[in-house]
């Protein structure tokens, strides 16, 4: 029984964190965030670096060029990326990889997975409408082509492909740049990643062709994406807490460091008291995707909702500990604040995912 990181897990985590610390300094984040929205949220050199580290093949079996180490590690990577607000289309690509593994045909897997591992294929997610269709957006099949609209695509513009769900829950893949497809960037608070709106007017579409029933595949894919988003929040929140504690130990007011004021200490204590058990929940939710399939989507819903809520609180408190400095752009804290704010809203905010969790447990119809 080992509930925690193994020696191998730590080695990987350390190497990813070390790599990101060097490759994603705050200046780089700023630079990409200031770029126009066509380019925002994607650093191709960083992506290639992640591929070289083997990070894109963690869930991919060895025969497709991956290391097959499992979803738990993918979540650790997402946490690390959130920790440095990395401009990388990781959530979209990883969730799509997971969908291909569970529900792609052998041919689809053979074609896509080795490319993913190498960093050549990247995926956006067009799934928002399966959770909560807004603005009457929907994607529908007419014959074999896709029509309609999907909002708030995750990792939209850097993607070479889009994993898209029809309004009746079928998953399939569209190629970026396909005839009849229009993708426009959406401008959100989070400029460390890429967001978009897709309009399909008779776009060629390839449904995933594996054996898993449609509903189950959609649920497992959503669950994976939610855990990755929650992990991203965990990493970002941990960094904000670390920064708050470090700032408090440095900053002097009234002739003493503010870390010695009980009010500041207690704010930090409250943050860590929320964060540490939440990490344990996230670990289990990630583990469950691979190993406790019957709990995979329930745990994903609860972890997403919980991290969404405590992430928001920590983002506020950590900003407040920084005083006025936290409100400026000078320390760049707001990139983390906004990233957490973004994760929270995607694929179901806390209230929606909890309601889904209630249905999964038959608490309500």
């Amino acid at each position, binding site marked *: 029984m080992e509930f925690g990181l193994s020696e191998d897990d730590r080695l990987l985590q350390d190497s990813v964190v070390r790599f990101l610390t060097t490759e994603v300094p705050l200046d780089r984040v700023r630079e990409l965030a200031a770029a126009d929205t066509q380019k925002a949220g994607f650093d191709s050199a960083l992506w290639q670096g992640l591929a070289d580290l083997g990070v894109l093949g963690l869930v991919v079996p060895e025969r497709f060029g991956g290391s097959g180490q499992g979803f738990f590690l993918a979540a650790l990577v997402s946490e690390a990326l959130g920790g440095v607000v990395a401009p990388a289309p990781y959530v979209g690509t990883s969730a799509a990889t997971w969908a291909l593994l569970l529900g792609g045909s052998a041919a689809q897997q053979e074609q896509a997975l080795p490319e993913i591992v190498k960093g050549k294929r990247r995926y956006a997610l067009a799934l928002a409408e399966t959770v909560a269709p807004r603005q009457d957006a929907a994607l529908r099949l007419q014959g074999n082509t896709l029509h309609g609209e999907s909002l708030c695509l995750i990792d939209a513009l850097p993607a070479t492909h889009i994993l898209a769900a029809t309004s009746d829950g079928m998953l399939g893949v569209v190629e970026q740049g396909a005839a009849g497809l229009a993708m426009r960037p959406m401008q959100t608070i989070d400029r460390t990643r890429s967001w978009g709106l897709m309009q399909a007017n008779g776009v060629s579409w390839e449904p995933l062709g594996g054996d898993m029933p449609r509903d189950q595949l959609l649920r497992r894919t959503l669950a994976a994406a939610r855990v990755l988003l929650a992990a991203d929040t965990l990493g970002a929140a941990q960094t904000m807490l670390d920064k708050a504690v470090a700032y408090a130990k440095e900053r002097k007011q009234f*002739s003493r460091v503010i870390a010695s004021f009980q009010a500041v200490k207690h704010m930090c204590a409250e943050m860590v008291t929320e964060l540490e058990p939440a990490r344990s929940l996230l670990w289990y939710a990630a583990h469950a995707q691979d190993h406790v399939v019957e709990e995979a989507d329930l745990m994903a819903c609860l972890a997403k909702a919980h991290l969404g809520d405590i992430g928001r609180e920590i983002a506020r408190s950590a900003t407040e500990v920084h005083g006025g400095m936290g409100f400026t752009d000078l320390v760049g804290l707001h990139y983390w604040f906004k990233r957490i704010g973004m994760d929270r809203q995607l694929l179901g905010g806390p209230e929606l995912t909890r309601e889904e969790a209630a249905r999964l447990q038959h608490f309500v119809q």
Partner: protein
Amino acid sequence: MDLTYDERYQAFRQEVQRFITEHRHLAPREIGLERPSEEQKRWQRLLIEHGYAARTIPKEYGGFGAPMDVLEQFIIADEFSTAGVSQGLSGQGIAMLVPTLLELGTEEQKKQYIPPTIRGDMVWCQGYSEPNAGSDLASLRTSARVEGDCFVINGQKIWTSSAHFSDMMFCLVRTEPDAPKHKGISYLLIPMTTPGIEVRPLMTMTGDAIFNEVFFTDVKVPVTNIVGQRGEGWKVANATLIYERGMLGDPNQTTNFYKRVVEVLQRETIAGESIMTRQPQLRERLLRLQGRVLAMRFHGLRLLTHFSRMEMPGVAMLVVKLYGTVLNHELAALAIDAMGELGTLYDKDPMLRDDGIWQRWYMFSLGLIIGGGTSQIQKNIISERGLGMPREPRTPEEIAASTAKQPQS
């Protein structure tokens, strides 16, 4: 309790309403974060002429010269706010400098500065905060030494809103480096065109640069540009700081804000059904906030009554800023949540709702929770002044710092 107004006030309210009806076509749109336009200044002069701005400022300084009456003030604010018509210029010159000069300025200073300030011809910024003196304002380091008949100023200010288009700054500087912390400070008036001043925009998390950093290198102003005595700047500034802290909760604004959140819940949909009916969890949050919004609104009336009776409201007054800023933040958070993914839109996205006010306010209200004394400082003030709880005992270092001269770091 009597929420009716007597005849005199009813008549006054009608007069205000009549003015608004007759003149609203002249009113500029809501005043933004720029230097007043000619149109705005014309509107301001019209308001002063009728006593709806600068109402209690003596005629000799360009005001309307009415005696103080908080109910009249309230009725004016209420009617203009309800009608959505500009109440004229605001800004730190009018809100803070003018009251300070009226109380502590020399006759020359009053005559020179008040008339153009209230007309919007002279724009001011405030130079209090420094990078190393946030909540602990008294530890500021910007220095002014006397050379001949001038102060020579060196140092840095931060959080200086409107510095980039201001004519003047009212500013706290350390003139007596050897005096204890609170006692070495003076209050100076500095023309922003003086050589040696550099203004740099300060970007905030909202992406706007409404604040600045201001750097002083050997900036010279005449020694007559002081308000109050040398070394008494702390007292001069504190009169208006209290004023500023009280001003930060505006029930009318929060009420309007609440109404717009209701609209968001009614307007936004999932699968065609409004959030209001589809998400009872968010409806519950809305109603919870409604209770607080109403509490704040009625609390404002209660304070108004205290003021009109010339009573000090005590702790009831001290809680307003903390209560109001947190409430605004929560309202914005709810609107964002109701919009789901679309709640994250910002900048100029074509699908952006309500000009993006929700995310902007979510962040800006967090800034207000922090600014002008963080919520931690507010709680200190409430517990000490409001509940009579003792200050934290001072450490030996603090005792030393407050009695000895400033560190020369």
